[in-house]
């Protein structure tokens, strides 16, 4: 009974995450979905996975999401999803497909009966090593991506300088450069001023 209530609540929160017009509200409903899925995992006997789902799914992902919304900005509320009929059909189709798949799955033949810790660190030791490498690669990738905005400006400025140095100075090039200038104005404002002052030729 408790499992049924949890499942209904999970689906309800997931639907509200779709229907919410504000991104922040949708993020909170998504966090509630992850938290309820974590409780469901606990019900299934996967305690460690439940803790990880709670901390990562409901915690870290939500923090990342709020951070991204803060950086990008919450856009004005969008109108409600107009394709509700389509959503209902998609939900019905996926439910049928997954239901049929679950009922027709064969039982595993070779079941490992060792404790989870032994399986995790011995049988799947390579997975754990790859996991650690992936975490560091992800962190480095995100740090690199977040600091790339100045590089974009630098590439654009170098391109303009290259164009200015390769094309002959004439009235036609002047008009080209002046037409390029408004396009770059937004990105130039965020760049260091010393690098951009030498751009006009």
């Amino acid at each position, binding site marked *: 009974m408790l*499992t049924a209530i949890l*499942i209904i609540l*999970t*689906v309800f929160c*997931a639907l509200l*995450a*779709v229907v919410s017009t504000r991104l922040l509200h949708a993020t909170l409903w*998504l966090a509630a*979905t*992850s938290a309820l899925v974590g409780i*469901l*995992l606990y019900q*299934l*006997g*996967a*305690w*460690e*996975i439940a803790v*990880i789902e709670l901390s990562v*799914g409901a915690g*870290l*992902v939500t923090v*990342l*999401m709020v951070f*991204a*919304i803060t*950086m*990008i900005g919450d856009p004005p509320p*969008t109108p409600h999803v107009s394709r509700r009929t389509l*959503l209902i059909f*998609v*939900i019905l189709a*996926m*439910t*049928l*497909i*997954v*239901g049929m*798949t*679950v009922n027709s*799955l064969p039982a*595993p033949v070779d*079941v490992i009966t060792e*404790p*989870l810790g032994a*399986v*995790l660190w011995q049988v*799947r030791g390579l*997975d754990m090593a*790859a*996991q650690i490498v*992936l*975490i560091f690669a*992800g*962190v480095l990738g*995100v740090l690199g*991506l977040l600091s*790339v*905005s100045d590089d974009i400006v630098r590439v654009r400025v170098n391109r303009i300088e290259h164009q200015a140095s390769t094309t002959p100075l004439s009235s036609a090039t002047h008009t080209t450069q002046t037409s390029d200038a408004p396009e770059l104005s*937004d990105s130039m404002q965020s760049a260091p001023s010393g690098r951009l002052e030498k751009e006009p030729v």
Partner: protein
Amino acid sequence: MTDLLFAMAVGILFAIGVFQLLRRDLIKAAMGFSMLFTAINLFILATGAYQGDVPPYTTNVEAGRAVSDPLVQALILTAVVVSFGSYALLLGLINIASRRYGSVDSDDISDLKR
């Protein structure tokens, strides 16, 4: 009955994830990505958990009771961490796209059409 409930929950979560993934707003698409990962993890665990009636942590298992396969949970543990890393990378990419194009609407990012 519980199998059916879990199948329905996974199916609905999967459908909502796919629906969100196809939205024009890139942030909502990222939310769909996260929901899809949650549905997949729940699916794998729901199919693997019922093979035994004792969780794989306990050491004193009564005679005649089957222990669940711990490999499923070990793989889900990896999947949760990998999904978090890829989700962070996805949000970083969306941040870069919003800075470069001034919008998170995939239709407004006109360079994708070229």
